[in-house]
């Protein structure tokens, strides 16, 4: 009784936070996005902030097709693309977006040693030049690939890495981020804005959704959890996978065993709707056929060690299920949690026999090339094959036959194997109309600018 009275006293004594304006979309970041920076900014939350406050040259629609954004039109030319910029695109200081801004952004990402690694990987050796509203993009990558990767690089004003031309402006105030719609923007945002708080704790986020303080939220990955009455559940099939990398000392037999176990190790009752066992070697959602890894007769060793990043309770549960499945085949799968920084350090130095990371692929087949290319962002263990080089040069088109040959080559001695396909599960206020997308609700074009409140 005394405790209850004390708690009630606490509630009376503590004041509420400032209530944000009505009809703003109330959202939660899972981590601090850091300062808005179109050159150095990295991470999912930072990319959401950039998608709201910036415009890429070419966007991707909800169906993953290239659509005009800053570029009103484009033409494929030998060595790249020629684009014509919109004449009504303006930065937040009202200055027009020109070819000089495009060239500066791409050059800054290439030259700055602290620039976003994701954007560097998306741009490769691409160079921009031009004048006024005409931009020439030149590089070694095929135009079809460029068109599916340019969405990752919103354009900043020359010399101002924190200023974009997007449909919303950002105001950070202490612990809150407010994105306000820009009335004259060419995407014509139909919501007044979005208001984000930082809610990394699952239980806190769940309570906030149940109290009606969030319009959109990521629920904890517990099977059987139902959204509150005012919200509906949205499941987006993303291109994210939980992938196990193999290092020195692991045998093809271990990979084949993992490929066998993944099929029945993860019962739906344990995983919920956000996860499904992966098939094949590369994401089947990108059109790749299902291939078995490393054909051969070597048997799986009796004991395997699988490292993962500590502190992720969902991942731990999944790997425990995998270990239980391995035990049924008489294999001891030892799970080794490591701090995230130490994990990556050991993985890249070849000190882990098996290591698990979640990777999000881009919606184009070229995103798997990170596994194969020297210095690729997924090539942690230095995978190489002399037969791969000539095939890599023939991947100008998503339907090129070289893809099949390349996948067969990878399947002979793969360095990685997906265990699970991840879906994005969101709870959304029933009154808000938005379009699900493989890129997530923010990254596609028009993204949040296309949302509207149902009257």
């Amino acid at each position: 009784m005394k405790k209850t009275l004390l708690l009630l006293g606490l509630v009376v004594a503590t004041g509420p936070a400032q209530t944000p304006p009505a009809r703003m979309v109330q959202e939660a970041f899972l981590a601090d996005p850091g300062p808005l920076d179109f050159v150095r900014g990295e991470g999912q939350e930072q990319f959401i902030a950039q998608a709201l406050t910036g415009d890429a040259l070419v966007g991707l629609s909800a169906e993953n097709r290239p659509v005009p954004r800053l570029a009103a039109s484009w033409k494929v030319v030998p060595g790249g693309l020629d684009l014509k910029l919109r004449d009504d695109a303006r930065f937040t200081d009202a200055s027009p977006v020109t070819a000089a801004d495009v060239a500066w952004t791409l050059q800054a990402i290439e030259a700055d040693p602290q620039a976003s690694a994701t954007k560097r990987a998306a741009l490769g050796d691409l160079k921009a030049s031009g004048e006024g509203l005409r931009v020439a993009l030149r590089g070694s990558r095929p135009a079809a690939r460029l068109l599916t990767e340019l969405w990752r690089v919103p354009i900043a004003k020359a010399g101002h890495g924190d200023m974009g031309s997007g449909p919303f402006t950002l105001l950070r105030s202490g612990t809150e981020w407010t994105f306000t719609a820009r009335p004259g923007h060419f995407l014509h945002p139909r919501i007044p804005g979005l208001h984000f708080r930082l809610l990394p704790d699952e239980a806190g986020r769940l309570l906030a959704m149940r109290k009606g303080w969030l319009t959109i939220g990521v629920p904890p990955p517990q099977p059987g959890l139902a959204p509150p009455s005012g919200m509906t559940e949205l499941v987006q099939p993303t291109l994210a996978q939980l992938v196990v990398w193999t290092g020195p000392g692991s045998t093809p037999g271990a990979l084949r065993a993992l490929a066998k176990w993944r099929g029945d190790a993860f019962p739906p009752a344990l995983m919920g709707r956000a996860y499904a066992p992966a098939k094949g070697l590369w994401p089947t959602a990108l059109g790749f056929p299902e291939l078995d890894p490393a054909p051969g007769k070597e048997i799986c060793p009796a004991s395997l060690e699988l490292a993962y990043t500590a502190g992720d309770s969902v991942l731990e549960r999944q790997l425990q299920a995998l270990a239980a499945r391995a035990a049924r085949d008489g294999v001891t799968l030892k799970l080794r949690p490591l701090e995230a920084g130490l994990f990556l350090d050991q993985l890249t130095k070849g000190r882990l026999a098996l290591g698990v990371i979640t990777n999000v692929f881009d919606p184009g087949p070229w995103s798997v090339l990170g596994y194969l290319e020297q210095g690729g962002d997924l090539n942690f263990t230095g995978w190489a094959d002399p037969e791969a080089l000539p095939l890599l040069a023939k991947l100008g088109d998503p339907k090129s036959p070289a893809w099949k040959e390349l996948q067969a080559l990878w399947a002979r001695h793969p360095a990685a194997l997906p265990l699970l396909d991840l879906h994005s599960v969101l709870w959304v206020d029933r009154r808000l109309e938005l379009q699900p997308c493989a890129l997530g609700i923010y990254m596609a074009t028009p993204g949040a600018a296309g949302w509207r409140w149902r009257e």
Partner: protein
Amino acid sequence: MRLLPGLALWTAALASAWSLPGHLWHPAQPPPFPLHALLLAALALVAMASLPPALVFLAGPSLARRRVLSALEAPPDLVWALLLLAIWPADAGPPGWSAWTAVLLAASVPGEARWLASALPVEMPFPHAWGPEATRASRFRSLRRLVPRWLAARLPIWLTASLVAERVLGLPGLGSDWMARMEGRDHAGLAVWILAFALLWIAARPLEKAPA
């Protein structure tokens, strides 16, 4: 603790922060320092530094054996934060910084009071037999020696308690900043944190000297 060994320890901590091993896959920029939380943290620190000693001064070493203190001390920080969030009226909107202070105090004061009360010397038969004035003087002298060491030892623990409240209530402050710099391998930011702790320790040393 003597100055030189203490300084050596802090220097080693500083070197560890600066050379923290490992790197991130996609390193992100560290978040800006939460300046907005400094004043609130200072006020909460004053409350945390004064409430338990005041309670112990009034109640004496017997406070360590009170059942009510055990009952209040038992729930972890997370439970206090979630409990407050659960009973918070939905119409009132998300709770603010005053709620964070309340959670921090509710989660920490009982445990801190017990810690201090347990460390006090026994008062029976003396100084109890010499009267209340002698007892109060004894408690005051003991607390004067204890409090600086207690503060230096408990600050990192309070920072952790603050982190829990910040995460659950969605109010990033100093605890989140410390954790974000650790996770993001912000060596310079971590070193500044360690330096701040070291300076606090150095500033608290004169208070440890026994009264003449």
